[in-house]
């Protein structure tokens, strides 16, 4: 069932008229007639969990925003940069209005003065399409300057404040009794770290994308965009919201399991015949269904060796060939956790028997070395050091003791950095060594292949 990728059933739903003909912007209209607290409670009741990777309940996040604060913000995390992740791009390309509508429902609920969609710079073309969709919907009066839907004032009678334009076309904070909230696209410029929420906010403020010290958290005064309380939600998370408001949380919860409600987009890549995005109901399908029924099986009929279920940052799952019962794991947050890994953003990379896991570890650590923002020493130096060791391993110049060195360095990166990147960088290398020691062993010798330096050097 596609509630996100509705273009599968409704061609051209990216166009405003087609979207509106199929119920588009009715959920926003409905939300604007509800008290804000009811909107938040409905999303809470749906148990919609954040689709960016952390799985935090969206409604709970929204409820952290202080309603009596005059200016709050919503920022949409469209900085999709994790290795193997390409789901949000398809939403923004093919069903952009559903994201915009979901974002506006959230904006209303949290009294946001503006919505910023932070999209990675490499999605230049995607951003252009999204900006057109925003302009079309705003011109049609669903939100922004032409909107004439009154929204309730707060108990003290203060009208909501929005970021609007003054008579000279310059930005200004305006008060309006209508839903005058606007949506802006902010283009990044190539930095994985800006998908981390506090680095995203720094970048949006025109600074280097480096994580902040927390608390205060983004939802707190002093911790969000321009120091105002801010919700940061992933694209896929918000694209679920119109369905929840239109049909109710009870209807939404009919899909999936108790802990994993609704559907999820699975980004399938690597050694499968049909890589791509597949939207599946949580809990109804297994890894095997995803790989064989949807992904068309393994290329060349080979055996599966390993799965990275959450791009480069989650622990690898060892698979001993195509009959391994681990492939019967249902696709939910809770069941994937039982494999010792995580579902995360569901960027599922399949690796067959031809893959050398030492090479995989090297690829992934090079990624994190490149993307480390440089703020915290353990991550900056640790990722650099680990690339040196994995290079040595692949060159056949490593000692057996270099494996211990990797453990030492990686374990000193975990839990001691401002954001999770340090942890993410340590995970893949520690887990590939744990699950595939033989792949590393074949590259190392007791003395390393290089002659030991002569005494006195």
């Amino acid at each position, binding site marked *: 069932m596609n509630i996100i990728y509705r273009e599968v059933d409704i061609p051209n739903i990216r166009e405003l008229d087609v979207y509106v003909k199929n119920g588009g912007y009715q959920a926003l209209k409905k939300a604007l007639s509800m008290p804000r607290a009811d909107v938040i409670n409905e999303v809470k009741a749906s148990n919609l969990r954040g689709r960016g990777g952390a799985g935090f309940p969206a409604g709970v996040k929204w409820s952290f925003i202080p309603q009596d604060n005059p200016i709050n913000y919503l920022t949409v995390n469209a900085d999709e940069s994790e290795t193997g992740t390409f789901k949000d791009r398809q939403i923004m390309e093919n069903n952009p209005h559903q994201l915009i509508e979901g974002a506006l429902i959230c904006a209303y609920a949290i009294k946001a003065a503006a919505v910023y969609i932070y999209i990675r710079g*490499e999605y230049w073309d995607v951003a252009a399409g999204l900006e057109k969709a925003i302009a079309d919907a705003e011109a049609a009066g669903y939100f922004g300057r032409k909107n004439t839907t009154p929204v309730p004032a707060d108990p003290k009678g203060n009208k909501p404040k929005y970021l609007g334009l003054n008579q000279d076309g310059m930005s200004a904070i305006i008060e309006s009794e209508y839903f005058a909230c606007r949506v802006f696209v*902010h283009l990044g410029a190539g930095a994985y770290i800006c998908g981390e929420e506090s680095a995203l906010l720094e970048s949006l403020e*025109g600074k280097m994308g480096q994580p902040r010290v927390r608390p205060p958290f983004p939802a707190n005064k002093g911790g969000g965009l321009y120091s105002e309380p801010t919700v940061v939600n992933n694209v896929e998370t918000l694209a679920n919201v119109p369905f929840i408001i239109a049909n109710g949380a009870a209807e939404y919860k009919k899909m999936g399991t108790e802990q994993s409600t609704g559907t999820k987009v699975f980004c399938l890549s690597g050694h499968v015949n049909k890589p791509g995005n597949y939207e599946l109901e949580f809990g109804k399908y297994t890894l095997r269904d995803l790989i064989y029924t949807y992904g068309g099986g393994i290329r060349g009929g080979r055996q599966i060796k390993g799965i990275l279920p959450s791009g*480069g940052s989650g622990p690898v799952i060892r698979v001993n060939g195509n009959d391994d019962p681990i492939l019967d794991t249902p696709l939910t947050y809770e069941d994937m956790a039982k494999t010792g890994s995580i579902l995360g953003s569901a960027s599922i990379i399949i690796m067959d028997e031809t893959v050398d896991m030492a090479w995989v570890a090297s690829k992934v650590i090079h990624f994190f070395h490149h993307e480390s923002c440089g703020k915290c020493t353990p991550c900056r130096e640790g990722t650099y050091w680990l690339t040196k060791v994995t290079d040595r391993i692949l060159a056949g110049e490593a000692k057996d003791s270099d494996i211990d060195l990797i453990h030492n360095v990686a374990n000193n990166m975990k839990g001691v950095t401002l954001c999770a990147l340090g942890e993410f960088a340590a995970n893949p290398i520690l887990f590939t060594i744990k699950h595939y020691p033989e792949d590393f062993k074949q590259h190392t010798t007791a003395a390393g292949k290089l002659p030991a330096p002569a005494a006195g050097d």
Partner: protein
Amino acid sequence: MLKEKYADRIQAILAKYPPDRKRSAVMSLLYIAQEEYGWVNQQGIDEVAEICDLDPTQVNSIAGFYTMYSEKPKGKYWLHVCVDLACALSGADEFYENLKAYLEADVDGNSKDGLFTIEHAMCLGACDRAPMMQCNFHFHENLDLEKAKALIEQWRANEAKK
């Protein structure tokens, strides 16, 4: 001067942020500077700094931090080939090396004819369409060496016509 030549675009960018938060416009303005000068040169840095009420050093830190700003001159066609894990499982490393050789690129990735700069990139969000590349940040997907060579020759022919 960017301020005069791109006045409308700059005003539209500044209007996206609160009146006292001009600094938020710095990334969008750097793209305009790069478009105008071909790379982010000191002239561009200084002009962007003036528009955002920043010190040029602050703008320099932004230009240096993000990978999509080039701090040195580059070819008119700036190619980024994704060689990250998912693409590499579909032969992206070999594709990149072969394409680089075809362009006779030097260590900085500049082609012999100076028209192209080729670099490898981290995940570009097209893992199901590997090997792939971006040219000036536009997607070219489901490639192989022959298809990429055809694109290169097409761009070369377009330039020769000018």
